[in-house]
């Protein structure tokens, strides 16, 4: 198994003592109720709603961009109660998924754009492929794949899935490394970019203005200034 290294800007991530890597662009509401058990990666624009109920996330869990993790609620003795959400170890969650399950076991793979509806229970070692929508209160048994809309049983998984997922998540974690090149060139490039970005608005530099009439639409501000 091989995985391409994925580089990240060190300034954009917070690394804790346990090895959690949390993007600064993610949104963790109610931090005191969120527990990361170590070596968890949280990528940008993830929302974790710890303010609604406790959220526990296990070791070596990777949560991709645009995912929303929000605890589900249930009517309980007349009042609404938000249920705590537990996510196990070695879980991979794809981009743009919405997770409001009651609990997710260990060694679980969830694809892109999935909807895990309210109070679902995902046991250990299961796979949810891309674009699956699980109905509320679904229980996904171990070593199965549930897919489609609404999510139904598709196939069994081999016994080696646990080992596979273990290795896969450790690989993903180990290949998620800070950018080897120091951050000085990137800042200089942004400095170079900045004058060119501001110049069409100011219309001071003559090198940019002849181009703007040729490309219609996008560069509308300079055209009135030419007329």
């Amino acid at each position, binding site marked *: 198994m091989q995985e391409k290294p994925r580089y990240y800007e060190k300034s954009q991530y917070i690394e804790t003592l346990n090895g959690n890597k949390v993007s600064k662009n993610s*949104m963790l509401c109610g931090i005191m109720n969120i527990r990361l058990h170590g070596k968890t990666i949280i990528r940008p624009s993830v929302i974790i709603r710890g303010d609604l109920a406790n959220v526990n996330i296990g070791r070596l869990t990777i949560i991709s961009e645009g995912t*929303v993790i929000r605890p589900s*609620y249930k009517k309980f003795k007349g009042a609404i109660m938000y249920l705590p959400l537990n996510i196990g170890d070695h879980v991979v969650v794809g981009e743009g998924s919405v997770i409001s399950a009651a609990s997710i076991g260990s060694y679980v793979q969830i694809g892109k754009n999935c909807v895990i509806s309210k109070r679902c229970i995902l046991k250990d070692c299961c796979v949810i492929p891309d674009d699956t929508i699980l109905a509320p209160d679904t229980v996904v048994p171990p070593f199965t794949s549930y897919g489609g809309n609404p999510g139904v049983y598709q196939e069994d998984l081999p016994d080696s899935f646990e080992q596979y997922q273990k290795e896969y998540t450790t690989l993903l974690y180990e290949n998620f490394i800070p950018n080897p090149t120091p951050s000085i060139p990137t800042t200089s490039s942004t400095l170079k970019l900045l004058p060119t970005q501001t110049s069409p608005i100011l219309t001071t530099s003559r090198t940019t203005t002849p181009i703007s009439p040729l490309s219609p639409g996008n560069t509308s501000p300079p055209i009135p200034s030419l007329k």
Partner: protein
Amino acid sequence: MSQSPPFKNTIICQDCTINNGVTIGHGTVLHPKASITTEHGAPIEIGESNIIEEFVQIINRSKEKMIIGSNNLFEVGSLIECKLIGNENVIETKSKVYRDVVIGNSCVISAGSIVPENEILDDNTVYSVTDRNRLKFTSPIPSESHMSIHPGHLEHLHKTLPNFHNMKKNF
């Protein structure tokens, strides 16, 4: 205590984007990253006691007024472009409601379904798009269960959300 909504104040978390010309009724809760925008500056009117969750986009692409009633629930990531929505509707996760759709009262649109243009949903309609078929039938049961939970849900959110989020000031 405050048994009966409407609550006095609206809860709007700081990370929401709200354009000018949007009016929001009392007791509505906007979770963070919800966005209510207008393209041509036409107004949007949102009623009382709605819940609008994360990544919900309410966009007015027409030049006419957009009206949303009361006691609606918009779940995570839904997209609403239609002109008229009644009361007590549930629009579930990641569903899309396109332009020129009219939604009556007590409708439920299931998760991930797309309501195409010019569709008219009468009262008590359940609309659901699955892999195999497209369901559209009338049943009062889903919205009844929604309305049995909704006041309690609102009350809970009104209690807890101000403790954790910075609120946008009234506008």
